[in-house]
């Protein structure tokens, strides 16, 4: 099933927002095909009528009151920003 070519790797890289140099696409396609080829053995397992796992241990998610219990930490939030101005994260100009 898995037959990842150069173009597919380029597409995945774009979706993952990782720049990959052209000459690295081909070797990466080989690596990904190896790994995905190996995981395809899961096809042997009969999973008809099996529900996909949704909770690792039998624990119910808790409910809590819908109220504000944190906040007012703009300075802390921006403290590690590579670039911040006027209380905001700063990024390169976005032109569409």
């Amino acid at each position: 099933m898995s037959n990842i070519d150069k173009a597919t790797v380029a597409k995945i890289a774009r979706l993952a927002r990782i720049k990959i140099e052209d000459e690295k696409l081909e070797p990466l396609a080989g690596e990904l095909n190896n790994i995905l080829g190996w995981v395809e053995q899961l096809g042997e397992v009969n999973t008809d009528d099996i529900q996909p796992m949704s909770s690792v241990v039998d624990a119910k998610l808790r409910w809590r009151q819908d109220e504000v219990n944190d906040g007012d930490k703009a300075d802390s939030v921006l403290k590690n920003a590579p670039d911040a101005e006027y209380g905001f994260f700063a990024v390169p100009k976005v032109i569409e």
Partner: protein
Amino acid sequence: MSDLTKLKIAEARDLLAKGDLSSRELTEAHIAAVDAADSLNAYIEKTPEIALEQADAADAKIKAGDAKGMTGIPVGIKDLFATKGVHTQACSRILDGFKPEYESTVTQKLWDDGAVMLGKLNMDEFAMGSSNETSFYGPVKNPWRAEGSNSDFVPGGSSGGSVASVAGYAAMGATASDTGGSIRQPAAFTGTFGIKPTYGRCSRYGMVAFASSLDQAGTITRDVRDGAIMLESISGFDPKDSTSVDIPVPNFEAALTGDIRGMKIGIPQEYHLAGMPGEIEALWHKGIEWMKAAGAEVVDINLPHTKYALPTYYIVAPAEASSNLARYDGVRYGHRNVPDNGGLVDMYEATRADGFGDEVKRRIMIGTYVLSAGYYDAYYLKAQKVRQLISDDFKRAFEKVDAILTPTAPSAAFAFGEKSDDPLAMYLNDVFTVPASLAGLPGSSVPAGLDANGLPLGLQVLGKAWDEETVLKVSGVIEQAAAFTSQPELWWR
């Protein structure tokens, strides 16, 4: 007093309580040991000032009669636990310069109990690796060397710094994290005791996320008792983590009764791998004999979906990682690269290209692919179904047995570069640890012997969900029977 760094946590605790030792003395000895262990590359950030301050506070606490198990005990912290104002990068370049404004719950619990932080420990980048070779800060060396040899071995991974610091007498204990075996496999490679509790036992708040449905904190120590003491300190419900479970934390040390008479120990037949080294089989067999000698009943069990655990893991974990690691975009923290005349997307792509290492990129790519339109059902949904079957296997087995005994890893520590070019060979290291991770079960690795070259080997004990006490109890019996007293030579000091 003799070398204070050789003390176990329980021994130091008792000396501290009697007033025969101060945390300041103990901490100073460890700060010196940390400096002397630079060649292991276990620490990527040292915090001696914080350590001494905490040591003095611990001494005051002890004087006031307010001591807990970890009070005054110097420990190392894996680099993926957020420590306020201190280097926290999960050993990745993408978090360059990141100093959290908050503290992880696990480390906060240690500090609340009076523990002392020696520094931050090396690890595989984002915990993705089994040899600590993927760290941005370079590999960690295993304190153990083969008999009569000067060549270096990997410490295992991803908690390579944690195990090397503890095995190398540069920490009395260390925090670690386990996603598919990152506590147990390195513990086996270094003759240390590692325990990963049940998923939900420790809060994940402030832990850099890799695969959220698998990640769980745990500890590395030099023996089982120390593991019980330290694990108890970091365990417990936390409203800040929605998957943390609100059940009482038992007194783990009290579980170490040494009495496993009448207990049923399961031996999963699927773990007899073709081509597994004879030494590993022999060690496992020894473990079985130890169980019988201690009065336990050994029962053959089946975990039929075992062979599908690794492929399942290598869909689920990268899928969750690709989602978790999407947050590293150069906007809010860490590394940023804006190419000349580049826009926002160029910045994302360039930042992530030079911020992530090869293995992390590989896993993000796989995760992105298996979650992408048209492939989600075939890969991700299928894997989550097989994961349910793996979990069901364990549930069925635990109707018949109290604990499960297996080898921890299919080999002893290996040489640098031996597997780093072959992702699949590297992944196979976790063949015995991944199934329990997928099922969220508690597990430990206990030092149980040496291979023909004099390198440590471990046995793995798995328990029912929330039954860390049985895991600890059985581990303690193995420790007693194995009488593992070997130590690495202190070649790095």
